[in-house]
């Protein structure tokens, strides 16, 4: 733990508090304010867990972006997974998906009603189940951003090489750069900078953000997930804002390379191709997802069972879409903490521990004792 402790040093954090206060004052003296978006759910979680908003000067707002894969999964996808469970398939999923509301039900309720639904920490669980139950079809719920896509494909690659006939993916992979482009194009949104994801960037590379900085004037800082990484990242964004610059600053260069991870990229390109996909709360965004190439249709649960993913019906009062776009804070939604809370989530942002609403509900930060 000594390695991690170095990134959680309270004395260093106290120095960032002073630095950020000075920079915040400098910006306020210019008559400015800054709004930065942390794109990734793991950042949202760390910001809440370590009470990082407590360190921000008044002139700086940090809003949470669409980077929790569970939160942006369309209700229609959950409906399809429930349908497959009802047909006797073994569903394997990351645990956070269990309580995500579909149009009518959840996977947790489907399991209680007799569906075989396994939650897993690693996609490899699906391989093990496929080998152990050759008579059943195993459907892996393949959601996630670039970080998750690569290990899921590594699992699929193993299944294909060992000619396992009973393993399929229900694919809802999503890509970070296209959704950031969609957010920038929204005239209602005014974002001065992106705190770019740590591990997604390890796959796609820091260069992937250059168009946002160079063409749209949005500062981009790639930051790690530890609290000092995040404070350092906010400092970097604030310095760019004050100087009127917009560049890509890779502060997580102990992991992220400019070009990313070419092995993972080749694997993704081999199996997948871009497609327009639906994001809960954001709608359909062109080329923002990845689907299996036609030659791998046998591994595609949607094609194999002729499912057509229907856009689901989210709760009409749920403002998760606005939260995901960073337009409102969770507490500004009328359902927040009243009808919608972690034990009874109505919207996706309340379900995942990485969701903005769950994080804000659990870790309401900035309390003054």
């Amino acid at each position, binding site marked *: *733990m000594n390695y991690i402790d170095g990134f959680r040093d*309270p004395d260093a954090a106290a120095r960032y508090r002073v630095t950020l206060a000075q920079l915040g004052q400098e910006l306020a003296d210019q008559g400015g304010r800054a709004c930065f978006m942390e794109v990734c759910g793991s950042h949202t979680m760390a910001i809440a*867990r*370590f009470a990082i908003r407590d360190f921000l000067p008044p002139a700086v707002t940090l809003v949470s972006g669409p980077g929790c894969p569970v939160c942006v999964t369309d209700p229609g996808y959950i409906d399809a997974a429930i349908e497959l469970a009802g047909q006797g398939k073994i569903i394997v999923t990351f645990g956070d998906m269990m309580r995500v509301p579909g149009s009518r039900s959840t996977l947790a309720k489907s399991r209680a009603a007799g569906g075989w639904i396994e939650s897993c920490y690693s996609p490899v669980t699906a391989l093990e189940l496929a080998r152990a139950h050759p008579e059943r079809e195993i459907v892996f719920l393949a959601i996630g951003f670039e970080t998750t896509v690569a290990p899921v494909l590594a699992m699929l690659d193993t299944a294909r090489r060992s000619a396992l006939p009973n393993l399929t993916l229900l694919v809802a992979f999503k890509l970070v750069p296209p959704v950031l482009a969609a957010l920038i194009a929204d005239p209602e949104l005014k974002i001065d900078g992106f705190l770019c994801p740590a591990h997604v960037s390890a796959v796609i590379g820091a260069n992937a953000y250059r168009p946002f900085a160079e063409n749209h004037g949005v500062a981009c800082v790639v930051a790690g997930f530890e609290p000092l990484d995040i404070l350092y990242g906010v400092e970097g964004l604030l310095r760019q804002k004050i100087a009127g610059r917009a560049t890509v600053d890779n502060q997580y260069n102990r992991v992220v390379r400019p070009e990313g991870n070419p092995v993972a990229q080749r694997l993704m390109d081999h199996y997948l191709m871009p497609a327009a996909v639906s994001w809960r709360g954001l709608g359909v965004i062109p080329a923002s997802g990845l689907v299996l190439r036609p030659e791998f249709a046998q591994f595609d649960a949607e094609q194999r069972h002729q499912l057509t993913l229907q856009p689901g019906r989210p709760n009409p009062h749920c403002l998760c879409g606005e939260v995901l776009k960073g337009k409102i804070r969770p507490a500004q939604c009328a359902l927040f903490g009243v009808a919608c809370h*972690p034990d009874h989530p109505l919207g996706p942002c309340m379900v995942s521990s990485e969701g903005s609403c769950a994080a804000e509900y659990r870790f309401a*930060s900035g*309390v003054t004792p």
Partner: protein
Amino acid sequence: MNHDHILLAHGGGGRLSHQLITQEILTRFGSGPLASLPDAAALELDSSRIRFTTDGFVVQPLEFPGGNIGDLAVHGTVNDLAVSGARPRWLSLGLILEEGLPLTLLRRVLDSVQRAAADCGVIVATGDTKVVRRGQCDGLYITSSGIGEALPGFDLRLDRILPGDRILVSGPLGDHGAAILAAREGFENFHTPVSDSRPVHRLVEGVASLAWGIRFMRDPTRGGLATVLNEMTTGQDFGMLIRARELPFSPGTAALAEMMGLDLLHVASEGCLVMVCAAEVAEAILEFWRTLPEGEKARAIGVVTADQAGRVILESAIGGLRVVDVPSGELLPRIC
């Protein structure tokens, strides 16, 4: 016994049932009130102030690093009595066995029950054995009730908690839940977490002379420290402030939590005591606890506050403040 596995007939009341009881139960627990297999144990206490508790144990896997379902059942029941300010005296042992359970496994579990009961100074006074069909339970379930004598001097009530009181924990948090998770997920490559399944009654009895300053005690099992502290503060006119830097964690447990994204405030311990006490007695209690192996890592983790009424506030590792909420949903099913 001539069989390697539990058969339905072991629960049928006939010869095999009798064999199971005499060979596996009476050999281990037959020296006391259980000797003549009465329908009810005859017990006598000097005190009329007793504490009575019950619990069910369904943990999977049945054996895990640091213990098994047998010692867990004893410790769980003993600890519920201890944190109520009682000296544990008698336990019941209800066994629900699945057809096909390997007898060697049952013996290991019963040996653990025997050892743990001896270590806690409690007597298994009554019990029951049932066998269910394959598939109707997951190997072995245990139910256990416990009777304890109230220790003089303890007056444990939430309304005695005052601002300025100290919050103490007797050892590392979250080891049991982490050990179960590691065992289920097959993590064996690094410092594997080890369950802290162990009794806390010595930690309580040893500080009985300071009982006047002890306000309240709990053991942070399911839901972890966050749940216990929230149960203490919800609806009260005081709050609590705890400091992340003071929280004791075992290195293997902390490493697993980082990898799995677990918040250890929500993870169960099975051999840890959380105490709220007057500031005047806190140091003396910690000093005594640290003389025992189960209290070696004891720490003062925070204070009771006059403001933030009804809330538990954490000062994070880097010095920010946030609310500590209870976990929602199932963090880990069937950990005890």
